[in-house]
């Protein structure tokens, strides 16, 4: 299967109406037309000179048909060739110009093919093939320009390697012209010029040529093919010097075709490197976009998880403030917790650049946010009034409603998880871990709150029971996080940093747990507990961050 080839000089091609690939096809085929003009002239001269005339005729016919189809395709589009009509005016005008040159040219080619032709027909072709080449070359230029061509050296290598194809045919044609008219100065000059140019470009491709904008080729597989071309070229040159008979000429025609095939191969290799680089750049940018979105979602889930903790922390701080007769420190904490909760909730809905949140459009998420808001708005009012007046009634509301708020906040976490599905067992496992570890943060605050309620004598029996449950849940989850639990999809960590962090939490927990469980606490113990729970929360939070971000869990 023929591989679809490829662009000459292409920069940021997207600005144009066609896709990269479509434009690449257009430029390649338009570029190939240059070669065809010279190939047709060469074939025709072979027919006239009687050199392999049957083969030359067949080749001439297929070249003619291909040129004809391609020029029409460039103007109007051709699905089979993969061509899309250009919308650029200058391109279309130039193509029309080529077409108007082509029609009389084609007519004469057909006549020569039929065998019923005059000397004038041959002369016309000889005179006009270069004109056709020149105009086609201009059309290629416009096409390339329409793609906002970069002057990258690699692109120049593709262009010039492509040009070598044309030169092989042009040299062959010149040789035939010289054969038919050995005294033609024009043909001699043209031959010399073509050969010099071919040689220079070939050298430039290998070793670089600043004037031509070529850097030395590095890819070993292309270097090897260039060396092969160089060898073929040396042999060709030697034979040109010695060519005398028709047979010599026939051999040269063969060799020029082989050289064309070799240059075609090399052009494709340059194009491959160029296209590959473009392709990878496109893929990388799509992947980056995807990754950023995923990271954003992870962040949202983490923040939503933190909201759960805040509901418990607010209650704890309110209780502490009441216990410490309006401690400014606790009131200050309460205020900042409330503001953070409020701001994050708004951020989920409307976006918040500083928090790294973008606005949500997902209806399910919006509905869940609304559910939280229904509870949060009155809750917030009571917190604000408590901050201002310190009344027991507001504290009562906070104590009564905080668990419902916690439940709805947790519903929101679960909704986010559903809305942003993860893939892969490890991902799922990791998300479970982050969720459970995240919940531990909340539990540190919940159990402190419950301990305070017990200490304050608010529903002491019920709160004692709740406290025991919370302690047990924290205990069990910490155990599972450290040792793994297949049923809960929790993998056992093997990352040293994570293991160490969990151990740190465990050590801290071992010291605090008896205090939570003890009925009567001394003042020193109370202080230890109040400081300790904040530390436990902090260390647990560190563990969550590690679980979330470490490559190897």
């Amino acid at each position, binding site marked *: 299967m023929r591989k679809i080839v490829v662009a000459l000089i292409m920069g940021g091609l997207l600005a144009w109406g066609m896709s990269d690939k479509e434009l690449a096809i257009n430029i390649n085929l338009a570029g190939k037309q240059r070669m065809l003009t010279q190939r047709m002239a060469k074939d025709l001269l072979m027919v006239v000179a009687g050199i392999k005339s049957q083969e030359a005729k067949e080749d001439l016919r297929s070249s003619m048909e291909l040129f004809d189809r391609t020029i029409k395709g460039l103007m109007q589009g051709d699905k089979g060739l993969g061509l899309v009509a250009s919308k650029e005016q200058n391109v279309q005008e130039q193509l029309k110009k080529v077409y108007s040159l082509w029609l009389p040219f084609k007519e004469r080619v057909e006549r020569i093919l039929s065998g019923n032709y005059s000397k004038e027909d041959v002369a016309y072709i000889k005179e006009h093939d270069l004109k056709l080449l020149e105009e086609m070359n201009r059309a290629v230029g416009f096409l390339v320009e329409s793609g906002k061509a970069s002057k990258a050296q690699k692109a120049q290598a593709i262009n010039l390697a492509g040009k070598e194809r044309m030169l092989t045919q042009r040299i062959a044609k010149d040789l035939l012209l010289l054969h038919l008219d050995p005294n033609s100065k024009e043909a001699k000059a043209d031959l010399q010029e073509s050969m010099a140019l071919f040689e220079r470009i070939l050298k430039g491709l290998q070793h670089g040529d600043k004037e031509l904008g070529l850097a030395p080729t590095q890819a070993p597989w292309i270097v090897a093919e260039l060396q092969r071309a160089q060898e073929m070229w040396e042999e060709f040159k030697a034979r040109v010097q010695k060519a005398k008979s028709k047979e010599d000429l026939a051999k040269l025609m063969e060799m020029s075709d082989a050289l064309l095939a070799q240059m075609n191969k090399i052009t494709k290799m340059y194009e491959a490197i160029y296209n590959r680089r473009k392709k990878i750049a496109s893929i990388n940018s799509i992947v980056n976009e995807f990754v950023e979105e995923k990271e954003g979602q992870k962040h949202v889930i983490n923040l939503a998880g933190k909201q759960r903790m805040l509901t418990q922390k607010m209650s704890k701080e309110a209780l502490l403030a009441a216990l410490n007769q309006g401690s400014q420190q606790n009131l200050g904490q309460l205020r900042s917790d409330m503001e953070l909760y409020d701001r994050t909730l708004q951020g989920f809905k409307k976006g918040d650049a500083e928090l790294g949140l973008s606005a949500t459009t997902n209806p399910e998420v919006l509905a869940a946010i609304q559910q939280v808001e229904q509870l949060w708005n009155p809750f917030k009012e009571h917190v604000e009034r408590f901050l201002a007046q310190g009344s027991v009634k507001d504290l009562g509301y906070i104590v009564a409603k905080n668990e419902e708020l916690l439940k709805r906040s947790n519903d929101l976490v679960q909704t986010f998880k559903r809305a942003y599905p993860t893939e892969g067992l490890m991902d799922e496992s990791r998300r479970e871990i982050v969720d459970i570890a995240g919940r531990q943060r909340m539990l540190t605050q919940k159990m402190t709150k419950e301990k305070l309620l017990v200490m304050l004598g608010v529903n002491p029996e019920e709160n004692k029971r709740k406290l025991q449950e919370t302690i047990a849940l924290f205990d069990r989850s910490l155990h599972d996080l450290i040792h*793994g639990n*297949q049923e809960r999809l929790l993998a*056992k*960590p*093997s990352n*040293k940093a994570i293991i160490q962090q969990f151990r740190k939490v465990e050590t801290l927990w071992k010291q605090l747990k008896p205090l939570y469980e003890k009925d009567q606490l001394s003042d020193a113990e109370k202080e230890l507990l109040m400081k300790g729970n904040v530390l436990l929360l902090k260390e647990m939070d560190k563990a969550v961050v590690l679980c979330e971000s470490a490559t190897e869990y």
Partner: protein
Amino acid sequence: MKRILAACWIVVALFGATKEEDEMVLVRITKDIPYIYVDHKGTKIKVMRIQDPGHLLLDDYSKTSRPCPPFCIHPISVDKRIKTIATVEMIEFMRDKVNSGKGFVIDARLPHWYELETIPSAINLPFTLLEKGDKEVAKKLFKLFGMEVKADGSWDFSKAKELAIFCNGVWCDQSPRLIRQLLKYGYPADKILYYRNGMQGWKLLGLTTVVEKGKVKK
């Protein structure tokens, strides 16, 4: 871990592990296979993976650069007719074929390598045996593998065992050479499996190996 396995398997009968014990296996071979038992020279060996998630392979099987030649990387396949397998298939082969007497695990390396450390249940068939031998050697060997010599002297492989063959790993040519010899003397290709990952692949997954006649390596 250096315990005598015989004692162990009296407690836990063949394939009869309790459900709790299955669940305790944190590093399983596959979802359905936490471990298997095989016989190695008369000793029951429990084949499972090392259970410490932090364990590292530090011995010579973590070497990257044995000189090539001769220790060159080998293609994924020895011969078009021979199926290549990986560790899961090897374990299943041991469970389904070796344990029921339908197949052998073959260690193609030289005897001192085999004695040093090998895969449980493997028997040693050094690649040199057939390379240095002749049709008579092959005949004797194949008869051990269940090949029958018919009245007219022709070889009948219909009851021949399946063979899963390995050596040191992807950079080792001993099992490919043995397989070529087996094919040369007519052993049926559909009864030969190539475990390309070999000892290295086995050890990279922390699977049980045996040393010194049936003792589990620590």
